């Protein structure tokens, strides 16, 4: 499945050489293409992944596709307006979607621990499952291990995908990704989790159970001695119980993670990388774009979200500031001075954002991009999502 990463964006409007104008990400072409089966929205924390996934899903549904969106930690009001504030870990129909074009929209909010528990329950005997679910190490692993949320998002995606394949319930799955410092976490998590579960120490704890490992036992008693000294004996016992009980599940976990990873490399998948026009977010986006191409994963393009709307009129920031200070000399509370300063502020922001974006484009000239201006208010209902959807599609 080593299809090359490509831009699945319909006709490209390539900028003239020398300018840093990226090709345009044609969102409607992406959503309408029956060949698009999965859209994954990634990006660093707070940039608008959840908003973008919900907006894309709604737009696709209203353009006629049978869509399910898997959201992670949506803002409370957004969750309410989509009817998914209940965490029951299954997709529910969203009310108020325009189904005239024949599409529909289901939505769900990921419950990470529950997803993990369900995997354990499906893989182990009831007796063993109970042992695992109660173990403090499992509780920590399933609720706070860095990467578990990403891993479970992938697991849930795999489940929904299999179900949709079986019964044709959906033809498009839109996936939000967890709030993490780095978008790379999403791709690294399954590997992190399986390599952790496959780590030296776990193998060591299992060694007596797994047969001939006599030369390790000298090391082991040193280690257990030291651990007992620092952590106490109870901790060590809990650890051992956990690892032993979990042993039979490791293989299953790894196999599932590999399957989902392959699904992400499938050419029916499209990654949408979301960034704010900020240095950190764009740097993360750049890392992520590079990583997608290394891992042969299909990139659709970049969404620059919450961009400052361009000011109108040909007045530069400096001119505006100079005029404002003259007006203020005459009248300290001058309205016009205030307007000019706002204008200067916005011009500077827009200039800075343009500079940051062109830096990204210089290094990644082929990445199709769409820019979504910041709305004046939060996005917390279907109307807001429609508006963002329209902006994503270039209008």
């Amino acid at each position, binding site marked *: 499945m080593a299809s090359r990463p490509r831009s699945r964006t319909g006709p490209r409007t390539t900028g003239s050489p020398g300018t840093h104008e990226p090709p345009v990400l044609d969102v409607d072409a992406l959503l309408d293409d029956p060949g698009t089966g999965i859209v994954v929205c990634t990006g660093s924390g707070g940039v608008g992944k959840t908003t973008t996934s919900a907006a894309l899903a709604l737009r696709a549904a209203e353009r006629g596709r049978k869509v399910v969106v898997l959201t992670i930690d949506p803002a409370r009001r957004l969750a309410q307006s989509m009817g998914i504030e209940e965490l029951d870990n299954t997709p529910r129909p969203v009310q108020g979607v325009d189904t005239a074009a024949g599409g529909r929209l289901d939505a769900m909010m990921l419950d990470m621990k529950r997803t993990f528990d369900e995997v354990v329950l499906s893989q182990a005997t009831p007796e063993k499952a109970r042992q695992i679910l109660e173990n403090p190490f499992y509780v920590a692993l399933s609720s*706070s291990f860095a990467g578990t949320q990403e891993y479970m998002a992938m697991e849930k995606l795999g489940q929904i995908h299999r179900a949709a394949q079986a019964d044709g319930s959906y033809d498009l799955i839109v996936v939000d990704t967890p709030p993490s410092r780095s978008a790379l976490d999403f791709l690294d998590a399954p590997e992190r989790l399986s390599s952790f579960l496959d780590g030296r120490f776990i193998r060591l704890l299992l060694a007596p159970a797994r047969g001939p490992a006599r030369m390790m036992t000298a090391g082991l008693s040193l280690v257990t001695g030291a651990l007992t000294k620092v952590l106490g004996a109870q901790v060590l016992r809990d650890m051992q119980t956990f690892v032993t009980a979990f042993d039979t599940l490791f293989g299953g976990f790894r196999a599932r993670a590999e399957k989902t990873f392959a699904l992400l490399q499938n050419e029916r998948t499209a990654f949408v990388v979301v960034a704010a026009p900020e240095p950190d977010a764009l740097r993360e986006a750049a890392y992520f774009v590079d990583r997608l191409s290394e891992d042969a994963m299909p990139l659709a393009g970049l969404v620059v979200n919450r961009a400052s709307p361009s000011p109108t009129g040909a*007045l530069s920031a400096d001119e505006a500031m100079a005029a404002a200070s003259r007006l203020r000399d005459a009248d300290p509370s001058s309205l016009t001075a205030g307007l000019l*300063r706002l204008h200067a502020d916005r011009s500077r922001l827009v200039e800075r954002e343009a500079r940051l974006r062109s830096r990204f484009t210089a290094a990644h000239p082929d990445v199709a991009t769409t820019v979504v201006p910041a709305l004046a208010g939060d996005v917390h209902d279907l109307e807001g999502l429609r508006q963002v959807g329209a902006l994503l599609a270039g209008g």
Partner: protein
Amino acid sequence: MSTRKQEFGARAPSAAASAWSHVRLHVVTGKGGTGKSTVAAALALALASHGRNVLLCEVEGRQGIARMFDVDPLPYEERRIASGLPRADGLPGHVHALHIDPESALMEYLAMYYKLGRAGRALDRFGVIEFATTIAPGVRDVLLTGKVFEAVQRNSRNKGATRYDAVVLDAPPTGRIAQFLNVNGELAGLAKVGPIKSQADTVMTLFRSPRTLVHLVTVLEEMPVQETADGIAELRSVGLPIGGVVVNMVRPRDLAAADLAAARAGTLDRARVAADLESVGVAHDPALLDGLLAEAADHAERRALEDAQREVVQGLGVPIFELAREPAGIDLGSLYDLAAELREGGLG
């Protein structure tokens, strides 16, 4: 943006803030991306005057400090990285930085408190260090907070180390902060006895004392403010001392209240604006006028949202410090500007 300073931090320093001079540990948390690292750095600069030594710590493995201060990535080692913001008497202090990672902290802890010798190296070789610092519940946080504690409360075991007048911690985000600082409670189910437990107890005593303050950074948007309110409630419920709420990236207040209302209603006096522009020789056309009025309407709508959120913040019953949004972004120079704003507000 120093021209605007008078519009922000100009309130009298709050009474609460002036009672904070004995605080040794400032913990800075907040929703992701609201400016925790920026505020922590500015606070460290603000506290470092009069020859005081301030340590700025990060624990999330991001090398944010190095980036902000434009220095090489930090090792697990204290480094002097900047002069503090001087006071009127001109005497600055120093900001030092430390990047704490749990693996190094565990190795150091073992070396400092146990003579494990060969066993210590075996721990690493067998992947125990990795195991303990990634999965063993709470252990990671015990190690990170333990090192912060050690820096606040230096004792003779750490020979030759700098004694700091204050430590500023760029902490995990609001959603994890109570769990992070409440290491004792978190451990209760696990290490019920033993050295890790007694270490956790000592650390908790400092964290719950008046020598510690937890500040929360927010921006005036719904989700971060909600998270701040939840965070304060949670911190209070576990007995951790709340400092201030730092409201970051506040929009400039260039329009008077009446003008804001008019801007929202679309009733700003266009002719007056045109006349004003002419009076200072700015060539204008309908497009520029439309643009200015539309920008004003946008701004007014955001300000209204901000004001609504500010009221929520004010209802939290915690001292508030506002920091202006720097339109050109944050560089080392603007960190000092933010430090000055914090100090004017009475923090630092």
